[in-house]
């Protein structure tokens, strides 16, 4: 059997398209939450897909989505490094007053019986985007991208136990921010 490794092989490109492009919205979603900027997210996803295509010969599972996400996460981390060296703010998905100072405080004092108000999607997106890393990443992979704990552990290269405790923390933070949001007059 001939071995084909050429990047120009159209059959290979077709298989890659079929496997990877259905996850484009999910990948873009993850990039938006990680980078909190629409343009940067687009660039990161494009970079991710081109890298994934380059390494597609070595893809043998697990599921395509976590494999793509692991690549995307590395691209986003490179972007974080770049941002650290050029300090102009590139975060647009979170308002300035909420951007880096977390809205949340630890949840222990939260009244347990208080009902949660059903915020609209834009408000919840903003609250999620304001979560600190690495809690935001874990939260988004679970609640929005619907990965299992094990898949998340593979993507973020952390033990499953760490994923579980980060998720618990993320939800506690989000719940506090959710409550705090209710107290603010709109």
């Amino acid at each position, binding site marked *: *059997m001939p071995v084909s490794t050429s990047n120009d092989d159209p059959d290979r490109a077709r298989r890659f*398209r079929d496997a990877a492009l259905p996850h484009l919205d999910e990948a873009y979603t993850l990039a938006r939450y990680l980078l909190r900027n629409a343009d940067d997210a687009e660039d990161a996803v494009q970079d991710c897909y081109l890298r994934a295509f380059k390494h597609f010969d*070595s893809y043998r599972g697990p599921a395509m989505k976590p494999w793509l996400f692991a690549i995307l996460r590395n691209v986003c981390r490179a972007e974080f490094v770049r941002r650290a060296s050029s300090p102009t703010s590139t975060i647009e998905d979170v308002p300035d007053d909420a951007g880096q100072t977390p809205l949340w405080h630890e949840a222990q004092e939260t009244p347990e019986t208080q009902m949660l108000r059903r915020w609209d999607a834009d408000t919840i997106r903003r609250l999620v985007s304001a979560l600190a890393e690495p809690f935001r990443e874990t939260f988004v992979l679970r609640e929005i991208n619907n990965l299992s704990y094990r898949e998340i552990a593979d993507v973020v290269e952390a033990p499953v136990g760490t994923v579980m405790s980060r998720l618990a923390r993320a939800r506690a933070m989000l719940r506090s921010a959710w409550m705090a949001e209710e107290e603010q007059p709109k």
Partner: protein
Amino acid sequence: MTCDEAEILLHALIDGELDAGHAREVEDHIAGCPGCTAQVRAYREMSRTIADADLRYTAPPLLRRRIEAALPQARQPNRRAVLRGFAMGSAASAIAATGLVAIVLRGDDEARIQSEVVSAHLRSLQAGHLTDVLSTDQHTVKPWFNGKLDVAPPVVDLTSQGFTLIGGRLDYVDARPIGAIVYRRRSHVINLFVAQTASTDRHAAKIEALQGFNIRRWSERGLNYWAVSDLAADELAEFGEKFQASMPSGTAG
């Protein structure tokens, strides 16, 4: 169970990541603890609200076109088999154990074992892991398993029928040793995993696809079989049928 433990584990409970035994432990604690009961209710409600709100973004159409444009354009579909490398092998990467990791297991054993079987197949394809005993002779492969497993897996030579026996291997699935018999068809490797089962029921074969591989699963004479390969489903079915037909009748294998 303390509230501190439950505070973390209740999330795994909400997410359906606990096995039945541990789920019940957490539920037992919650049932007797108003504080944790309120937490579970609040977090369930929050997750439901988030799911209802749909917080996903849609990729801009231009992004899709940019990616499409960067990929080579497809011509006629080409069914030719392509050998691929296995350099990344992330499926085989072990997840570091922590105190909590052992209990985070999906309740669905069947699906989990299928996924483990595929992982074992992937591991076997990495250099040097395919066979522990390399032989095309069933009379060499079969005795090699003696003493290594509770049950000697049946080994039949199907070379004349287009499936070359290339050896055997001891593998691990579901944290137990399991026999793997390795066949080859053209450039495709077939791992046939054989494990003992408490039930002697005969289950008809079914074929499923997982992570790009086909799995043909059947049970016969107290043994569970999983044949895993990147062969097309019809060829894998043919392999399974020929294997079953070649089984020496009247023995437990």
